[in-house]
């Protein structure tokens, strides 16, 4: 359902051409659990941004659910992001002036969903993630683990088909990190496709499919057999 065909991405830094992705081909089925690993500068974040439609390939094609999304305009791509893709970031990216519940509500507001329905959906989600008593807290009143849980709630409130997590445990201590990871893995049961970018081999090894990147290329693609 996700397919990258011969995707290249080059940046111009100063007067130098930097290649972040070289001729990448990747096919990902629905419900897969993929981890992308590699040293910094290997192109794993660019890959994630590409999958999340935050970046456009310099050349190559990106097919999502069978449709070519490479040539969509800004508004159409925004719509795809809104409806099919959820993001979880290393530094949470919660809006500091909004409460936890309001942060979770944000994608629903952007999608133009009526207020009553928004409230109901946010409430259910907050309960599921054990955040009900934190709903009216601002992000700076929450612990790191709670913040990431709010961020995951926000990423899933639109029921996306793909969840992209960029170093989701990077800013958390070990125990909290595992908890967050378990929460993300729990979403697999709902049929979500989970992509985790990490440089932590231990975390990466949990995924059923692991790819390693180096210098903008996929150097290994392994499937863990149960």
């Amino acid at each position, binding site marked *: 359902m996700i397919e990258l065909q011969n995707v290249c991405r080059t940046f111009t830094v100063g007067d130098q051409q930097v290649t972040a992705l070289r001729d990448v081909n990747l096919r990902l089925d629905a419900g897969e659990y993929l981890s992308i690993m590699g040293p910094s500068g290997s192109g794993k974040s660019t890959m994630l941004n590409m999958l999340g439609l*935050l970046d456009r390939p310099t050349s190559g094609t990106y097919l999502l659910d069978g449709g070519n999304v490479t040539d969509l305009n800004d508004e159409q*791509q*925004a719509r795809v992001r809104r409806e099919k893709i959820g993001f979880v970031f290393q530094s949470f990216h919660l809006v500091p002036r909004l409460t936890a519940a309001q942060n979770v509500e944000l994608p629903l507001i952007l999608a133009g969903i009526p207020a009553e329905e928004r409230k109901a959906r946010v409430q259910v989600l907050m309960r599921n993630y054990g955040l009900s008593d934190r709903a009216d807290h601002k992000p700076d009143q929450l612990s790191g683990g709670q913040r990431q849980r709010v961020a995951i709630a926000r990423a899933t409130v639109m029921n996306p088909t793909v969840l992209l997590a960029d170093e989701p445990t990077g800013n958390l201590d070990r125990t909290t990190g595992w908890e967050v990871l378990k929460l993300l893995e729990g979403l697999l049961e709902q049929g979500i496709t989970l992509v985790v970018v990490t440089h932590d081999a231990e975390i990466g090894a949990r995924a059923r499919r692991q790819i390693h990147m180096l210098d903008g290329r996929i150097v290994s693609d392994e499937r863990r057999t149960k």
Partner: protein
Amino acid sequence: MKLADTFQFAYGSLRGSPTRTLLMMLAMSIGVAAVVVLTALGEGARRYVVNQFSTLGTNLVIVLPGRTETAGIGPGLMSGQTPRDITLDDAQALLRSRAIKRIAPLTVGSATLSRGALNREVVVLGSTSDLLEVRHMSIGIGRFLPAGDIQEGASVCVLGNQMKQELFGNEQAVGQWVRLGDRRFRVIGVLASQGESMGMRTDELVIIPVASAHQLFNTSSLFRILVEARNRDYIEQAKHDAEEIMVQRHSGERDVTVITQDAVLATFDRILTTLTMAVGGIAAISLAVAGVLIMNVMLIAVAQRIKEIGLLKALGAPGKQIRMLFFAEAALLSTAGSVAGLALGYGGSMIIGQIYPALPVSPPWWAVLAACFTALGTGILFSVWPARRAARLDPVAALAGR
């Protein structure tokens, strides 16, 4: 995203940085208040002048000797002759016109007014009984000049309020005799205190029959004739008739000038309205300055909220939506600034009105509307660039805070 949600989100981000919001509102409201107060002053001045004119009398047409040319010097001066005088007979002839209701010939001079040892130089107005009506004067004690043959010079006079005070103090003045130049006049009335009207203090006048004034000043010419038209619709007719009658009587020569009060009024009205607009326009510059301030602060806001913008994009907000959010912020800010400015402006106008009660200070509706729309317009206009900048941010770089 729904419009209501857009505005609510914008409101939230404005509340998120109260100092910034308050400062921008202050700049906006000072601009609006400046426009409101300054145009209120201009409008007040205009209405003051219009009021002054209406105290002069209504439906007035004024006949004065000599032809006023629009440019250069009059033909009379070129040929070395002065224009023909206007006489009392000329004045009476004007009453032949149907359009003319009343006339009041005027002769003006100065003479020494004395009673016993007290004497004072005064402006003497020679006229007829109709002057009271034509000039909207009112009598305080006694009565005004008697009606009758205007060629007959009775030795009676009407004193301005201040003249009476100076000569008689609190004594009874009506019935007493005063000396004006080399003639004696009996006081028959005292004018009610009226204050100033178009630079002529009626309180310091002495009014005598026009024929007596001619004898006193040894002349037979009139300073001018005040003509009251039958009503508003007859003003032009009265002006035309007056001109024709004067031409006839002056053997075909157009040597008088006839002006209507309306024309003078209209000129003043135009000048003062233009002035009000000019002053308002200058004040509007401060609104433009406020606009630049808004742009500046918005640009800073875009830089400060770069991560938030990146996040909104990642969550699926298209560039258009981001632009709308910034426009909504600018619109809210301008609206709030305008409202505060209006309150400030009206408050200021009221205070000025209290300090100068003579000036009918109130901002004209067009200036208020213009101020609000300019505020809203500049607010949104100057947010276009920051909003576009925010909308065009690369989401990856924005999320990284770059």
